[in-house]
């Protein structure tokens, strides 16, 4: 997915960030502290390999435009909410164009791959990636934050601005869903 308006945006944002030293310093800190997290989140929320750099950039450009609205301490949550929206747009765009993820390989017609098909790490990654993309959006977000970012239910609740009980409940359902979707692999492997 290409971003044709990116160059124009870049020029506008360069002027914005450069015009205020405090904003520039704040943005610099945000990139330093959260760039990797946002990149990983986009990737795990269904953005294709070839698009993830562009979309990460777009998230930070959006945040730069709305910097004044973000209260100190809420930067991570704001960035993540923006990233979640961008990932959702990207997934819809892939679906509309009939594109499949770069490595998607879950074969629904046979109930998923057999263990032998996932001998390589790359294949295993593609399978898990495909399983994640099939999950419900709310469940996927919580699952990714818990399993891959290793956040606690309390941290997830804070990031998503939801009650801790809701985060725990979603997490329980997300794990059940994930385990169900990967159950086809259980038969051929020792626990």
């Amino acid at each position, binding site marked *: 997915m290409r971003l044709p308006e990116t160059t124009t945006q*870049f020029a506008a944002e360069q002027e914005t960030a450069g015009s205020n030293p405090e904003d520039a310093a704040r943005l610099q800190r945000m990139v330093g502290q959260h760039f990797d997290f946002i*990149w990983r989140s986009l990737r*795990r929320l269904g953005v294709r390999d070839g698009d993830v750099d562009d979309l990460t950039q777009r998230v930070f450009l959006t945040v730069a435009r709305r910097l004044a609205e973000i209260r100190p301490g809420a930067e991570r949550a704001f960035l993540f909410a923006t990233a979640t929206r961008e990932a959702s747009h990207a997934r819809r765009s892939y679906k509309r164009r009939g594109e499949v993820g770069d490595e998607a390989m879950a074969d629904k017609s046979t109930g998923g791959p057999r263990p032998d098909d996932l001998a390589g790490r790359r294949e*295993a990654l593609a399978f898990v990636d495909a399983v994640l993309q099939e999950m419900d959006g709310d469940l996927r977000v919580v699952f990714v934050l818990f399993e891959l970012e290793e956040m606690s*239910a309390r941290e997830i609740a804070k990031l998503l601005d939801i009650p801790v009980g809701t985060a725990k409940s979603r997490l329980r359902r997300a794990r059940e869903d994930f385990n169900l979707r990967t159950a086809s*692999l259980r038969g051929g492997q020792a626990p």
Partner: protein
Amino acid sequence: MSFRERRPAGEERPSAVRDGLDALREEAPSEDSRRATLAALGLDPKMPVAAAPARTGRSAAVSFLAWLAAGLALVLAVAALLRWLSG
């Protein structure tokens, strides 16, 4: 979050799934990507950036428990040595 919450009993995943999750955990952006974003924001891409915060509270808690266990083991070992030396 307790360990039980973290990995409920019986929730053992197939190795291919564990491998896939591990591979996803290891994915990371390139330095070029970060620099391009800094440049797009009108910031100096060569300027050192603030270190990312500790990745997770959970990891920190596990690390703390590991240190605590190591410290306790050391104290017990010294106590046992002293008791042995004092006959």
